[in-house]
């Protein structure tokens, strides 16, 4: 006898145990407690992709929701701190900028700082925009500390994320989920059985003959989308006309001298390379377009651009940028790569898992599976994907590079209208609006616009209420404070040593 609602979901099966699977398991176990049985099936034989080692600050919310101690989580996952992403060679070869996890300057009279900066910049008397981001300054100096709650200090006004070993993270969450009642089953899925009358998934048949039935199925089986696609034939939106990269080669290497508190994305002739420093190694990978570059060449470029000795064989991945037409179909929700794929240029993979989980929890169904809620879920998911997509496209589109056919293609390609509007708005007025729940806000767009050569021609009219000299003085003051703050931060490596060194 239960005291709950009669049609409550009583059993969930999660198919697949990578980052997505275990994040979902942990979060649902935490959210649902004992009201619901959660089973996860994974096979030790199937490797996980294990990209997405770099995260964005929202992951802190996820940890917080789970009640995970941050230092402990970091120790267990060989994690390092991350203040932003260092984009090298994107605007042009030899150019560099950082997309920071923290705003530039401070608003003056309710007008965003960057308008004041734009005025000075348009007059040719502005210091570099990066001078106004403590995150960037700390990143360049390889310094880190968690924000300190000093009123009005830049030290209290930035954000950070982590770079960690996704495999260790999955293991960490597996322990967490296990302690909270999630049962793990070993086995490969042989068949997805659908209910005849409504096409809902009834059960998963494993190769060992076991049958796993549930009210709700979560598809975390990766690109393949074993449930959502192979069984439910949902369909996929292909975005490769805007995001032409379709392959990646990943390889870890030994640590460099300096432990950088940021991820680096270095553009090459037909794609880009990630560099993610962990405590015990550096994760590297080359994302490229097979139309413009051979696998061998891509691999050679990657191996040539490592900071230390390679620690494993390079591993190749193939993908197609895009998104599942629907992420929730009937009683199946696809989370992680099963729901779509976008290259990790802005470290969004884990974030998309996290928001999918959050959305699922907030729209958690009953066995009635009301279609309105499912539609709502899918609309939001699609919007989120598309806005991130547009932001990624900006990186390729806004370039002055003309040194390869790949970049020529990108520079000249058609882009989605939403992105075009955003660019036009900025160029014409210096304004950046964050629409609805889109992930990337003013700071991010500003960083990439300015970092990749898109200039505003105007600024907010209220800026002129302050005399230029006054603006210069305030700006100089802020710069001074920011320098002082940066000088007081400890080295990233020392901070880790003190708080969360892995053993």
């Amino acid at each position: 006898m239960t005291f709950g609602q009669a049609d409550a979901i009583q059993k969930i099966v999660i198919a697949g145990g990578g980052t997505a699977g275990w994040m979902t398991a942990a979060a649902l176990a935490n959210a649902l407690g004992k009201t619901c049985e959660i089973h996860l099936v994974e096979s030790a034989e199937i490797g996980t992709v294990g990209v997405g080692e770099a995260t964005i600050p929202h992951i802190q919310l996820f940890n917080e929701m789970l009640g995970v101690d941050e230092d402990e989580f970091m120790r267990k996952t060989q994690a390092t701190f991350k203040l932003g992403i260092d984009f090298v060679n994107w605007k042009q070869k030899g150019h560099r900028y950082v997309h920071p996890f923290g705003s530039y300057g401070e608003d003056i009279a309710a007008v965003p700082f960057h308008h004041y900066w734009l005025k000075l910049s348009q007059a040719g008397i502005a210091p570099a925009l990066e001078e106004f981001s403590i995150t960037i300054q700390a990143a360049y100096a390889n310094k880190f500390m968690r924000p300190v709650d000093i009123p009005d200090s830049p030290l209290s006004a930035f954000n950070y994320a982590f770079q960690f070993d996704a495999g260790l993270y999955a293991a960490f969450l597996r322990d967490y989920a296990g302690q909270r009642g999630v049962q793990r089953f070993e086995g490969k899925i042989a068949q997805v059985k659908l209910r005849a009358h409504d096409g809902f998934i009834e059960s998963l048949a494993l190769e060992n003959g076991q049958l796993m039935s549930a009210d709700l199925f979560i598809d975390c089986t990766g690109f393949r989308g074993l449930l959502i696609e192979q069984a439910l034939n949902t369909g996929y939106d292909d975005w490769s006309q805007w995001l032409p990269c379709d392959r990646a080669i990943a390889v870890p290497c030994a640590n460099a001298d300096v432990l950088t508190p940021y991820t680096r994305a270095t553009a090459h002739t037909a794609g880009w390379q990630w560099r993610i420093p962990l405590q015990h190694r550096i994760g590297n990978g080359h994302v490229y377009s097979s139309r413009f570059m051979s696998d061998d060449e891509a691999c050679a470029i990657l191996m040539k651009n490592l900071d230390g000795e390679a620690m494993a064989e390079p591993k190749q991945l193939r993908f197609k940028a895009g998104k599942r037409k629907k992420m929730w179909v009937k009683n199946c929700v696809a989370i992680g790569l099963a729901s779509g794929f976008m290259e990790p240029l802005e470290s969004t993979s884990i974030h998309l898992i996290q928001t999918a989980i959050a959305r699922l929890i907030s729209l958690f169904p009953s066995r009635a599976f009301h279609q309105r809620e499912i539609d709502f879920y899918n609309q939001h998911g699609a919007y989120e994907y598309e806005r991130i997509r547009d932001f990624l496209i900006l990186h390729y589109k806004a370039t002055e590079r003309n040194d390869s056919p790949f970049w020529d293609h990108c520079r000249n390609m058609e882009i989605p209208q939403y992105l075009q509007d955003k660019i036009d708005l900025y160029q014409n007025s210096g304004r950046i609006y964050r629409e609805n729940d889109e992930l990337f806000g003013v700071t991010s767009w500003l960083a990439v616009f300015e970092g990749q050569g898109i200039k505003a021609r105007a600024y907010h009219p209220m800026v002129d209420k302050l005399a230029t000299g006054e603006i210069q003085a305030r700006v100089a003051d802020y710069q001074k404070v920011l320098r002082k703050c940066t000088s007081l931060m400890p080295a990233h490596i020392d901070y880790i040593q003190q708080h969360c060194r892995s053993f």
Partner: protein
Amino acid sequence: MLQHNADPTIRSLIILGGGTSGWMTAAALAHFFVPRGVQVTLVESEAIGTVGVGEATLPHLRFFNQTLGIDEQEFMRATGATYKLGIEFSNWGKQGDAYIHPFGDYGQDIRGVAFHHYWLKQYLQGKAYPIDEYSLPIMAAQQNKFLFPSSDERSILSTFSYAYHIDAGLYARYLRNYSEARGVARQEGKVVSVSQTDSGDIKSITLDNGKELAADMFIDCSGFRGVLIEQTLKTGYEDWSHWLPCNRAVAVPTERSASFPPYTKAIARDAGWQWRIPLQHRTGNGVVYCSDFCSDEQALDALLKNLDAPTTADPNFLRFVTGKRKQAWNKNCIAIGLAGGFLEPLESTSIYLIQIAIMKLVEFFPDREFDAAPRAEFNRQLDLEYDRVRDFLILHYHATQRTDSAFWNHCRTMKIPDELAHKMELFRARGHVVQYKQGLFLEPSWVAVYLGQGVIPQAFDSRVNAVSERDCTALMAETHNLVARASGDMPLHEKFLQHHLQVPAAQYASPKARMSLYGVRT
């Protein structure tokens, strides 16, 4: 990429000279600034001897050691140290006289008025015991006794402090280990040239081995010569020999003697004075004299004639000019120790003056912009320290009734600084000691020397009369008894020392130090 060139922090610092001052400075910087990223290098040459005076110290050294986390027992063992309660001055006021300048008070204040006024009243009526008998450290010292003071203000045992006699060479070695273990680098070599920037700051020093060492800041601990502060920066020297005429010294160690007093001796001679500093393993001796009144041979002769044990080394002659560098801190160079000034060790002030310069250096530690105001304040405060110690030393020479030598006739009749004359006048008139907050020697010390050398007031503080004769006599008798009993109960210095060198570290309970010459009650 943006560079943070704006950060003006001192990144490197060179200490030139590795004597007591060099290694004390190095140790303090190792404690305070090496952990903050300042690279400290000490340059010294084994070919240059150190002066190694200042074997007698003041209680402030305990504060220095405690600040640096130095264990007293370990320090005592490493430096052959003994405990010290004061200094005995013989033959200063007149031949045959002796008094002890104690690290502690006489009696205690009664109704806010210093004890010596009550004593004076009775003394002027011919009723008091000698004032020494109201001082616990003096009575203990006279009986060769020692005990750690108490921090309980109610106890008579809280009325004194203590210092050490140490082997300065061993102390420097000890601090060298301390400093090197904490990241101070040592460079062997003699300076052959110094290069300066256009603005006159010191840029680098070049050593005889060809190495050129650059730094943001330099500490000159090169002794009298002042290789950086004077030879390079031409800072200038204020000569005080018209007030403190002694300009030579000859030192010689002797074997450990049977007499093991917990105090330094300063015995006035015909043209100067002789020190005696008892250590665990030997006794330090020397004569400070004025070459105008005494030849080197005469001085050596007087020294050798007045030793109580066989010598263990050849005598070592030193020359000096009493005075002070016009600015201890000039440009990016600070002179510490003898490079900053020289005052004869009559009141064991050498190490104290090093220590105070180091503490001010820590307090006013600059950055590469070397702002003017902190430097001016540093110099102003050090000048005050020097001036006040100077006046106190002059008092010893001037307040004498000796007429038995040309030297003493000179001292007795010489013109003294106006401030000192004013101070003496106030004491003569009614036992008033001029008060100041910044300075080493405070009321009890001035009282000790005034009274010890025959400067007897005509009157005393009028407020004394508000206490009835009977109460006054009773209070004084009580103090007298307490001092006699407490000093009688103390162990012999030698026994105490032996015991404490051997007890397990946990049982070695030395009290917390303060930046004061006296007990906690003062």
